[in-house]
Structures are given as C-alpha cells and as structure tokens.
C-alpha cells in the first residue's frame, strides 16, 4: 500500500534492533495479567499473562478454538475477562466499553456497513469523535490514498472485489489512528498470491505509521512473515511467546515444534547431559544421538528430539563417520515440489521421517528414487531436545 515511494533506508536497521521485550525497563503498552475467560463450563482463555510493546507487530497463532480470538475480543472490549486484569498504557481497561477504547479492529468478515459507500465507511469512526468536517474529509482522502482506493470512494461495498473490501476495512480501522490495531484473520478471504502481497504491505504500513498491530491468525506462514513476536496458543494456554526464528529453531514444546512447520519427532531417553551437549538413546540407531540445542533435560528423562526436514542430509553413499547422528533407511515416497523435494524415509525400526533437499542442480547423475537405500545424517546443532 505504500509501495510506490522509495523504501525507507532505516527500516532494515529498525527491524534488526527492535526487541523491546528484552529490555526490562521498557513498559509494555498492553498487559494481560493472569487473564481467565470462561463461557459456562468452557475455559476459552486460561490464565494468560502477556506483554505487548509499543510499535510491535504481534501475532496470536493457534488452531481454531484455541482462545486467540477471545483474547483479542477482550482487548477490543467485546468480552470481559472472568478473572485477571487487562491494562492499556498503564490504565486498567477491563471495564471500559468498546466504544471508549483507543483500539480499533479489522474484522475477519470486514463488517463493512452495506448501506454506506466507501467514504462514509471510512469516515464513520471519525464522525463519532465529532471531528470537524474539513478534517474528516482530509483524513478520509489520506486513507483512500494510503489504500489506493481513490477511484472507489463512491462505491458501495457490494460493488467491490474481495481485495478492495479488505482495503476498505483496513482504511476504516486505521482512520482513527488507534493506539492498537487488532486484525482478526485479516487476509483469510484473499487468494494465496494476494495474501502474500498484502502481508508485506501490512508490514510496511505498520512500520510507516509506527502503530502497534495485533494479528490473530491460524496461518503460521502469515504469522512468521509479518510478526516481530508470535504467541502460540492451544486450549486457551500460551505455549510459547518468541520471535519467529526462535519459535521455529528453538521450539519450547512438542506442540509448538509440531504446529510450526514440518518436523520429525524422534523419541529417546537421555543418557548424559552437559552444558554443551545432550546424548540420547533412540530406537532409530544403535549409537547415541548427539544434540546441542535444548539442554534442560537430565539423565534418565524421557525426551524427544525435534529435527526439521531441511536440516537432515540424505545420501546414497554412507558418510565417513556413521557413528554420530547417522541412520539408514529406505525411500518410501518422494514429493517433488520444484524448488525442493521431500523424501519420506522408512527406518529399520519402522518410523518414517521426512527429509527435504533443495533441487540445486538441474542435472543429477543418479537421482534418489523409490526403494533406494539411503543414509540420513544431521549435525548436533540441528536437533532440539524437548522434554514437554
């Protein structure tokens, strides 16, 4: 949406250094304190404590029914917490009705007013504030320009395409310059290509406006793309709150490892643990496995090793040293995706693991094919030991 102007050179620098959650002196903008929300017997949000900082692009990620939307609706004011406190810029807002909160929401269904044209939809929130007419007109104009909707100003919502309606909804929720913009599955109704474009536009917009965005999504790629930090939720509980790369590379639990991206989970038992390396026995190989990530396991613990498919190496010939993180298997299935190929390898113990390899070269002397015997290896830093 802000694509035509030259890219602000400082964006990269700001993005690289932006990590207010690591600064203990920084006051969070939004704070959930032990928030519980029950609907009858059902606990939608279970004792959630969460800090979100100013100018952060924060994603709530989880399967449907995990409580992420309820958490957002509490911030918008449509639901009241059963227990706990919710503060915005230091003030408790648990009791403040939605129409008095400096928070605006972009709805999943867009919720455009069908009897008003695009301009009136965008101006609706501004009129509620009794803003002078000239200022409203100027702000609407600015929003139309920002979302490239100038030529559609007089159209009614049903005369617009899905992508245009999405822009109107965004313009309407941004028009009041809220302290926090809530986005409830904002791109769910768009097709894949448009969704990917819009994700980057949203990021630029958030950066340019310097606002705090909170997005709810079940699409992990979307969350990974746009967010500074992601909170993975399941059954009303926060499983892990961390930047995307940490969520992917250092998942805290099996659930997070499995939910984000593809992963192989290998069960094992810890035989030795030091500050540098954990060694485990596992049914997939007679030799102990060496892992240097996720070092909180103690000898004797049942644990599992999470290894991403792209961090495994596959070859037809045995590697020089077959005693460290190396096991043999047979190709069960191959998925060719163009840029990558996914190999399903069946190991001697019966477990199947996924290995993905980039197709770097067009000509390969002897491609790996069905029923081949292959060797699979991984580096000690490629696996993560998970005890939960």
């Amino acid at each position, binding site marked *: 949406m802000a694509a035509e102007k030259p890219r602000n050179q400082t964006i990269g620098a700001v993005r690289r250094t932006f990590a207010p959650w690591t600064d203990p002196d920084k006051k969070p903008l939004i704070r959930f304190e032990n928030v519980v929300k029950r609907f009858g017997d059902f606990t939608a949000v279970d004792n959630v404590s969460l800090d979100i900082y100013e100018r952060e692009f924060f994603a709530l990620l989880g399967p449907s029914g995990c409580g992420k939307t309820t958490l957002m609706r509490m911030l*918008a*004011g*449509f639901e009241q917490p059963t227990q706990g406190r919710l503060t915005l810029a230091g003030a408790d807002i648990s009791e403040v*009705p*939605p*129409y*008095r909160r400096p*928070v*605006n*929401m972009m*709805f999943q*269904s867009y*919720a*455009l*007013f*069908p*009897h008003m044209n695009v301009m009136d939809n965008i101006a*609706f*929130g501004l009129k*509620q*504030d009794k803003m002078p007419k000239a200022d409203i007109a100027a702000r609407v104009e600015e929003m139309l320009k920002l979302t490239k909707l100038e030529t559609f100003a007089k159209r009614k*919502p*049903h*005369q*617009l395409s*899905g992508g245009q*309606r999405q822009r109107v909804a965004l313009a*309407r*929720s941004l028009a*009041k310059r809220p302290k926090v913009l809530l986005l409830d599955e904002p791109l769910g*109704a*768009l097709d894949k290509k448009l969704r990917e474009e819009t994700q980057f536009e949203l990021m630029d917009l958030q950066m340019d406006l310097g606002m705090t965005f909170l997005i709810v999504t079940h699409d992990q790629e979307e969350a990974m793309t746009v967010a500074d930090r992601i909170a993975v939720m399941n059954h009303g509980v926060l499983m892990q709150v961390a930047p995307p790369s940490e969520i992917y590379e250092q998942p805290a639990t099996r659930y997070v490892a499995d939910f984000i991206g593809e992963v192989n989970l290998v069960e094992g038992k810890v035989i030795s643990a030091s500050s540098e390396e954990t060694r485990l026995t596992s049914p997939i190989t007679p030799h102990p496995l060496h892992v240097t990530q996720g070092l909180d396991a103690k000898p004797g613990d049942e644990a599992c090793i999470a290894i991403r498919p792209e961090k495994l190496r596959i070859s037809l010939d045995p590697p020089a040293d077959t005693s460290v993180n190396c096991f043999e298997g047979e190709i069960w299935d191959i998925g060719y995706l163009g840029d990558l190929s996914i190999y399903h390898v069946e190991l001697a113990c019966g477990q199947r693991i996924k290995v993905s390899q980039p197709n770097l070269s067009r000509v390969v002397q002897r491609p790996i094919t069905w029923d081949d015997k292959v060797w699979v290896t991984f580096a000690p830093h490629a696996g993560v030991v998970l005890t939960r």
Partner: protein
Amino acid sequence: MRRGLTWFNVTAIVLGFAFLYIPILLLVVYSFNASRLVTVWAGFSTQWYWALLENEQLIDAAWVTLRIAFFSSLVSTVLGTMAALVLTRYGRFRGRTLFSGMIYAPLVMPEVITGLSLLLLFVAVNFDRGFWTVLLAHITFTMCFVAVVVQSRLVTFDRTLEEAALDLGCPPFRTFFSITLPLILPAVVSGFMLAFTLSLDDLVIASFTTGPGATTLPMRIYSQVRLGVTPEINAVCTILIAIVTVVVIIASIVTKRAESLRQAEERAALQG
C-alpha cells in the same frame, strides 16, 4: 415428465383463481353499475363513487378507520420491533419462553376472544369506549405480526456490523439508529404495512371495543348490508380493495428488493 402448462394445470389454475376472485370481481364490476338494483346490469356509470362523497356517514367512518389504522400500526411497529429485538438479542433471559409465547398468542387467538377480553378490560377499568379503545385494541393485535416479520429479518442480521460500529466509537443507542435500523428497515416497513391492512379491515375486534362516535368503515359497511346491499357499498369496498392491494404490493416490492440486494451482497461477500 412434462412440466409447464398441461391441460390439468391450466384447469386447476383457472378454477383456483375463479374460486378466489370471482366474488371480488363481481363486486368491483357492480360498483360501476348504473342501476340501483345490485343484480341487474344497466350500463357503466361512476355515479356511486360520486354519491359516496355525499354520504357523510361513510366518509366519517372511512376517516376514523384511516386514522386508527395509521396510528395503531405506527405504535405497533415500534413495540413489535422492540419485542423482536428482545427476542433475538437477549439470549436466554428468565421468562423468555413466556414472553415469546405471550407475544405470539394474539396471532392464533380467535378474534372474538381478543375482542371480548379487551372489552371486559375496558369496562373493568371504566375506560370510555370509542376511538382510543379501538386504537389500543388494534395495537394489541397487530403488534405480534410486526414482531414476527422483524424477527425473521433480525435472525439473519450480521451482528459484527454492530460490533464494528461500537469499535469505531459509536455508543449502542446510536449504533441502533445508524446501523441496525437502516438495515432492517425494509422488514420494519413491511411490518408496518401488514399492521396497517390488518387494522383497516378488522371488523370483529373493532365491534367489541368501539363506542359512540367511533364507527369504523368495516362496521359501517356491515350494518348497512344488513339493510340490503347498495351499489354505494360496492363502490366503498372497491376503494378498500384498491388501497389494500396497493399497500400489499408496495410492501412485497420493498421486501423483495431489499432481499435481492442483500443476496447480491452475500454472493459478493462469498466470492471474496
């Protein structure tokens, strides 16, 4: 199987419509009869329509009826819409079943009973019967029809629209008038028109609850017919039929247009 106009279908349609509309058609035709004798055709004339203008009793009755119909349907539209809102919005409050039962009871209650019970009430509280009692009675029995029509629209109303308005800083009361009401307006208007026509041609309840000086048109027609059908009555009835037909047609056009617009919007929304 062949569909469309078979001989059987045509006969069924002709007989059906004849059964429904021949009496009305006869009445309309004879209102243009030049003869005073209702059953003898003596050429075309509009004299009975002109005679109506001089029949003060009928004119008075028509004026009373129109006023009652207008004001009672106005009030019952407001009350019926409020009842529909309560029934669709406030989930399961204590006594909801009783409340909805009581709103819909007049829909199936025999008019004689409604009329009689209202009469007893007015007598008991010593309320002078006349214009106001008929008005109150009509509000009572037309309200439930408005509630039914409006409720069926509210059931499909997308509540996130109201949430969006609240979220943008619009308080609940104003949200109702700037978002909810404009969108359910077609249903409210057709509820109003339904109430209007029901009030216009009610005879039973009005006869029970009326008093001196507040004779409605259906009552006047009924009492005159007992003395013999005159061509004037035919003329009045023809006008009444015309009014009701126009109102019903407008109401159905309003709802149909709103409905097709809404469907177009929903289709567009689904295509995303």
